[in-house]
């Protein structure tokens, strides 16, 4: 991995009793599609807002290419917030051009860029349509056009895949990959960890405003201890695996069809495990098995993504009640 182009360094932000960001630190390498993952309420939106200076930080720093990200640097960033929003009564072309101008383009360049992205995102013919008269899908495209129109060097998208149908997810991911191929650093957030594991090259997973783990997706999914999935015909309880020594590996789980998921120790020999399985009966399935990102999360935090989100929602309600009582 090259030295990171965007660095979030020790970000802290306190909202009342809740620490939205609690010393969050990670780096995003240049020209990659980078996933910023975590359950709802982990602090992703707050961190992304901090990149644009929309949220003030209690401590910490955002660095872009080795220097603190100031207003001029931010003007070369493109942003698609989680709460999508455009001027409802403004026409599509005017809107896209307006944001190009706000990002410092001159009138000619802004006009050309607006036209380019409207065409590229399949919105041509709708230039004079008011935003509120566009379909939901087309409003999403308009939002993306606004984020892309000034040809940003860093693209930050908060939950770009939420609310998209499978076709929309494919379109969105192909655009993100295309931008990364053109040299743009792409940072996007998602609370659906497993949905995006094929889309991004590297990820940072956060929880409670802190980094849980970060790195290339392939490495994270393999983990320190590679995992084998082994099934012996007729043995639905994976009883054969009881013969495994602690030195060769541990059984993480047994699936309903009898497949044992075994984290092998570094010293273990996979062929020895295969021999043990064959001794018990015909082996139907034997393969290395990557973990899902949500499993990576569970292993690191001890809680599933769903549990973490439920916990967050409960904390929110409690906080709301306290505030209500104070009023």
């Amino acid at each position: 991995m090259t030295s990171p182009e965007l660095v979030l360094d020790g970000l802290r932000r306190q909202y009342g009793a809740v620490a939205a960001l609690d010393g969050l630190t990670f780096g995003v390498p240049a020209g990659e599609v980078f996933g910023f993952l975590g359950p709802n309420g982990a602090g992703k939106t707050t961190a992304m807002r901090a990149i644009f200076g929309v949220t003030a930080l209690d401590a910490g720093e955002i660095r872009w290419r080795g220097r603190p990200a100031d207003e001029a640097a931010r003007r070369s960033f493109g942003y698609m917030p989680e709460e999508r929003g455009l001027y409802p009564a403004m026409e599509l072309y005017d809107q896209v051009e307006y944001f190009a101008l706000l990002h410092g383009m001159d009138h000619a360049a802004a006009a050309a860029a607006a036209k380019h992205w409207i065409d590229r995102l399949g919105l041509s013919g709708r230039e004079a349509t008011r935003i509120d008269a566009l379909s939901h899908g087309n409003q999403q495209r308009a939002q993306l056009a606004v984020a892309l129109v000034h040809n940003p060097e860093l693209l930050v998208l908060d939950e770009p895949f939420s609310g998209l149908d499978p076709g929309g997810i494919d379109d969105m991911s192909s655009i993100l990959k295309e931008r990364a191929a053109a040299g743009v650093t792409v940072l996007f957030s998602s609370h659906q960890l497993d949905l995006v594991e094929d889309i991004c090259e590297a990820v940072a997973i956060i929880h409670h405003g802190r980094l849980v783990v970060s790195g290339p997706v392939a490495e994270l999914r393999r983990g320190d201890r590679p995992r084998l999935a082994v099934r012996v015909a007729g043995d639905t309880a994976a009883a054969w695996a009881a013969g495994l020594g602690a030195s060769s590996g541990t059984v993480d789980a047994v699936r309903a069809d009898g497949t044992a998921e075994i984290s092998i120790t570094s010293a273990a020999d996979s062929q020895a495990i295969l021999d043990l399985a064959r001794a018990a009966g015909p082996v139907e399935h034997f393969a290395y098995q990557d973990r899902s990102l949500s499993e990576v999360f569970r292993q690191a935090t001890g809680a599933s993504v769903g549990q973490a989100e439920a916990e967050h929602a409960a904390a929110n309600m409690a906080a709301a009640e306290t505030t209500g009582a104070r009023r």
Partner: protein
Amino acid sequence: MSTSTTGSAPAAGGQGGPARDGGSLRMTWLVARREIRLRAKTRVFVITTVIMLIAVALAVALPAILSGKSKPTRVGIVGGDSATLSSIVTEAGRLSGGQAIAVPEPSQAAAVAALRSGDLGAVLVDGKEIIVKQVGLGGPSGAVASLAQLAGLSHLVQTVPGAAAAVAHGVALPVRGLETPSTSLSSRLTGLFTVVIVWVLISVYGSQIALGIGEEKSSRVIEVLLSTVRPVQLLIGKVLGIGLLALGQAIAMVIVFIVAGFASGSSLVHGATLGVVIAGGVFIVLGYAFYCTAFAAAGSLVSRQSDVNSTIMPVQLPLIIAYALSYTVIYATGANTFYRVLGFLPPTAPIAMPVLYAAGDVPVWQVVVSAAVCAVGVVWMARLAVRIYTNSILRTGPRISIRQAIRESRNA
């Protein structure tokens, strides 16, 4: 998100090259420009402007036109010395502020017939009697009333010995006032006109600013905006853009006021001193700047546009009080102390001070002091508004109290 995913880099962005300068003034102007272009294009704006201008033109010109002095009264003369009576008729017309024409008639019957047909407005018989088609409820008026007096006087001089001498000294008693009004009614009415403009512009455009900010907040476009534009640039740009539109409308209203006034010969424009007009202009700008930044802050407190009206009502209150009280000053001699105090408070001065000055209740230096106080108030209000706005514009949910917004802005 089209499915044709060609990997070509965007030509526009690549070559046209974002300038990435974005000076503070440029940003503010871009925001202002959007407001002007978007609003000036709408049918509502065009229609309201036209209606406003027509209303001003009618308000100025109608009274002058309805007084009907352009149409001379035709008076038939039967018998008597027609030369003398003709000159009496002409003089009566002049005295009434209009015009009267003497028309010799061969007989009383012919004159009455002409009266019935509407060809004549009145008939003077033998210099002793005046006949009209119908006497008005309040007695004769206009040229006819003057004619009745003049002809009566002439008859008196001819029939009563010594009356001529008495008339030569004048029959009317002189009237002397202890105090003369310090300014003419016209000047006061110009002051009133200023007040109406301040009131209309602030209410119309102030609520538009609050609604516009509510729109940016409720549509959530604000977060995209804030990723490149500073809150102060957004707020000032919006107030400036809408303000320039408002100023354009105000100038158009003043031009229509002056043109319609002169064209119809309305007494409203005569005696309107330049000073009152200038003071009015200065306070229109100050009042707008003060209230519209306040309205912007109020608009940022709500999450839904429908809540905007309830938030701006308290902000408008001082303006409403000053507006209501100004009518008592316009038509009275001497303003009371309370109203004079209002003339120096930034929230009420934009209405109260032009009125006080137009009514001649304050000297010029006090107007200047008030304007200076107002200017300080505008800067203070703008700072407070930016603070409230910055702190509340990204917060959604229930309405935020002003105290909360100010308090939390300290640690934001």
